[in-house]
């Protein structure tokens, strides 16, 4: 049992204070609220580069641009700006397993996902918490289906992802104003999809044989005001801070060459909807997530081609 006789400091992370002088408008009036500027079927632009860490056998860096808000007042804290996504991935291996490890006829894949302490507006701890472990497990399932494991018996490969900038779970104004119990971790979905794509690039960079390159994609069903009414909509690559309410979201890890899904994760519930709202099925959600995955696949292939060209001195 934990020691209850002592008075311990707060165990979790702390939020950086937001001083009112930087907040020009109160968050409640909502005029500062960011909104989605791109159409529903267009994912964010992605920057992907492989071979960024010289000491690793394979590495990649992925970045999703933070959407530029033209309307917002330019003054303010950087931490209040809308979030982007920055991930770096290193792959070490295939390397021999330690002597103590039992024999394995195929490669032992281990994945680590860690938020940097400064990755989100609320600081993260130094020890991996349950969300990070969760991401690691999902990533492992996504990659396990791609790597041809039995080409490396008795060896292991470590995939390590550091999240330098993580997607926020909601707009900071919502976070601050309400004590909403339903603060679901929507940011995690985009992070996972990015993790899959960046890990795939790094694995290719490490030269590990795969059946195909896997890429991640997210789609979500959102509810937002349209005129006076609320309406639901399906969007690719949602940015949680841009939407007032996300009903459900789906991440897939997709192999375009084989039309296979190695990992799928749906969060939230679609129904019950109000009478005038358009209804969607979970299949629609998954299909659109696949479309998003195809988008990131194109970037992935482009980045890999670029690296290959560079290596061949073309």
């Amino acid at each position: 049992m934990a020691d209850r006789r002592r008075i311990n400091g707060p165990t979790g992370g702390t939020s950086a204070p937001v001083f009112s002088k930087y907040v020009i408008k109160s968050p409640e009036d909502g005029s500062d609220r960011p909104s989605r500027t791109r159409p529903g079927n267009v994912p964010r632009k992605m920057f992907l580069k492989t071979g960024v860490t010289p000491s690793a056998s394979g590495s990649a860096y992925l970045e999703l641009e933070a959407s530029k808000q033209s309307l917002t007042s330019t003054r303010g804290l950087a931490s209040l700006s809308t979030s982007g996504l920055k991930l770096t991935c290193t792959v070490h291996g295939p390397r021999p397993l330690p002597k103590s490890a039992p024999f394995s006829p195929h490669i032992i894949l281990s994945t680590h996902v860690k938020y940097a302490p400064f990755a989100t507006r609320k600081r993260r701890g130094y020890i991996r918490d349950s969300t990070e472990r969760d991401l690691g497990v999902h990533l492992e399932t996504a990659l396990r289906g791609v790597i041809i494991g039995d080409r490396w018996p008795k060896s292991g490969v470590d995939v390590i992802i550091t999240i330098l900038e993580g997607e926020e779970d909601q707009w900071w104004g919502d976070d601050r104003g309400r004590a909403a119990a339903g603060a679901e971790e929507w940011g995690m979905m985009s992070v996972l999809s990015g993790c899959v794509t960046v890990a795939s690039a790094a694995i290719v960079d490490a030269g590990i044989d795969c059946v195909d390159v896997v890429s991640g994609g997210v789609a979500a069903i959102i509810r937002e005001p349209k005129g006076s009414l609320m309406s639901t909509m399906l969007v690719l690559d949602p940015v949680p801070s841009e939407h007032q309410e996300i009903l459900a979201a789906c991440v897939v890890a997709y192999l375009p060459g084989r039309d296979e899904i190695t990992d799928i994760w749906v969060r939230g519930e679609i129904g019950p909807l109000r009478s005038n709202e358009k209804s969607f099925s979970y299949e629609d959600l998954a299909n659109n997530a696949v479309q998003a995955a195809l988008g990131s696949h194109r970037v992935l292939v482009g980045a890999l081609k670029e690296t290959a060209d560079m290596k061949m001195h073309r």
Partner: protein
Amino acid sequence: MSRHKLVKNLDLDEELDDYDGDEYGYDEAGEGGGLEELSEEDQENMREGTIKVREALPTGTALDSITDKEIQEALWHYYYDVGKSVTYLLNTYSKAAKKAEPKKKKGRSSYLIASGVMFSQAGEGALGSLADLEDLAREDDDSMVQHCSKSFNFAEFFKDTPWFNVPIERQAVLIPPLYPRGGLLGGSSDGAPKMSKLQALAAARRKKAQEQKSESISEVDKPMASLSLGPSTGKAHDTSLDREHSQSAVEQKPVSRGFPLRKRKNSNPHEKAPKAPPIEVEPTQEREEMDLDQAQNDQASPSAFASTMFGSATTSHRKPENIFTMPYTATIVATSPTDAFAGPSPDDVVLAAQSKASKKGGKDSSKTPKTNGEKKADQIASGVEAMKLDDTPRAKSKNLDVLAEYEKAKTKNAANFVVIGHVDAGKSTLMGRLLYDLNVVDERTVERYRKDSEKLGKSSFALAWVLDQGTEERARGVTIDIAMNKFETEKTAFTILDAPGHRDFIPNMIAGASQADFAVLVIDASTGSFESGLKGQTKEHALLVRSMGVQRIIIAVNKLDTVSWSKDRFDEISQQVSAFLIQAGFQQKNISFVPCSGLQGDNIARKSTEPAGLWYTGRTLVEELDNSEPITRALTKPLRLTIDNIFRGGIQNPLSISGRIEAGSLQTGDALLAQPAKEKCFIKGLEVDQEPADWAVAGQNVTVHLSDIDPIHLRVGDVLCSPSAPINSIKHFTAKVLAFEFLMPMQIDVHRGRMHVAGRIKEIVAVLDKSTGAIQKKKPKIVKPGTVARVVVELDHAVPLEAPSRVVLRSNGDTVAAGLLE
């Protein structure tokens, strides 16, 4: 003679001379023997070859002096290949001639071999091609020695070299080490190693044999040929050591990378699938052509951060050609490891040879190679083997209708009660006496405790030791953690939760009280003790159990023997306590008082025998307990089980937990969800009251053996629930609380049973009326003790909580409020 002397007497020169002579002698003998063995056919070949070589050699140079013997030797080495022999002779003898004339050529490059790296000095010209280098290496043998022997000043060499961004012309040029090549030196135009005599002979013989035999290919050969890595031609592949073939593979190397080309599937079958495209996605015609453009579209330019990190690197990454890092070589030499796969592998060769041998013997090989189908089956089998998961068997569910079973079993009423009160009020002793009188513990055990406690000089604690099992508890004479025990009367099966009275262990008391249906408040009647108790934990405990939802309370006025069973004292205490309890929210009818003595055992299981205490005619404590109404349980609600204790390391059951089922039911084989870890697990086995059982229902204290979960996901205070109706982990909640202290937005600890988590009061929404619940004041700055308020609490971690559950808020070791989740 000793060995030492023998060594001393050795003539070193003589020994060495002997050795040299021996070796040369052997070589000559070997070669001579080789020539002697020439067959007639070979001799004829040799003669013709010599003539041809003579014709091919240019005349008028130093080459004229080449003797027949030298030509024949060359021919022998190249197996009568005239062209190669001529090249070899030219190279050898023209070089020898050159060497003779004084060499005044300026050293084209000088080498400095320092720590295995070769530096090219700046300004001394670019390097020649690799072929040149090889020649140079041989030619400049002696000049190199001269260079190196010159005194060389390192400081001067590195004088103006910066630490970073070394200009390209000053950078190290790493030259692949000159590996000894296989085969013979010099000669041939292509750099492949030559065959040995034996190999050549074998190849020739095999070729002949091949020609004689028709083109029939062995069963094994076919798959082998298709497996071979080289660019396979239409003709059946000769998997022997055919060097011609492997050479052609080497030449083709840069074109095909040596890996089997796989047939690609359509790269985007999903998009081309005939099914209707998902809504709101643009039509997918001409996707293929658009792909590249779109990739450009999707690709973002790096952000400021990324361009700082990697932006400049792209240009400088381009390395000049022919400059290598150490372990690799530029042009693919036959010795490089990638080439090892160009030809058939040694295994293939052996297999092919074996199959051939068996063919030649004319007998059908008994070991027929595996057919395609068998092979496939093998592959699948090995694949399945690789995929094997955890093989511990999962307990099978019997699919019982637990509620029906429960109805059938019709067990006695079960009730849990918590024993509370100020420290040293005699809670544990009272319960020890109760168990002793009801024969739950035998006399010998109590006798032993009595003896042991006397040794420590605490004879009055003997009965308390029945419940206080821990060594620390016994040594200090205080209960630290909840002690659980059971006894049965005719009507009901009771579980005692003996709570610690000390203020340091209130969290443990909360854990116990959260499992209780009703409470027994023990009050010390001795002079002074009651008064201090009422100020202390008597009050706090009573308030806590009330806010934990306990309705019924029995007050055992203990230690009446110390005040000689004074009725006045009892009445005084009853009056004060009932006034306080009613104020705390208990109803008059749910409060009952029993005067008793834990040490003597009066009015606990038996009526008092003290003559001074005969004035009390009411029920004894046990009768009063029995009088409690059966409690209705939430059997049909979804399962909720708070983990009270985790046991690890058992051999049969590596992971077990215990706890009380708060709602719902479970049975062996059920899947459970552990919150907040969100991990699924399965029930492997079940114990109710230390007896194996197949099912359990709300209200029972169970031990559950779990499988398929890592223990790190479970912690004391976590909730196991049914996966179909899981409890949610939340970080914020609103609660209606009764304040015991001043409340303001502050750091608090939220307790619910065993679970506790740090958090803070974020907002005080309103002060409410105690009885009606109407809002009295909105957004107060502070809440006074004794008032009811609605507060918003934010937690540090998400924890499984749901309305309506009761929570206790503590701060700095004091209970500040308790209330109900909304």
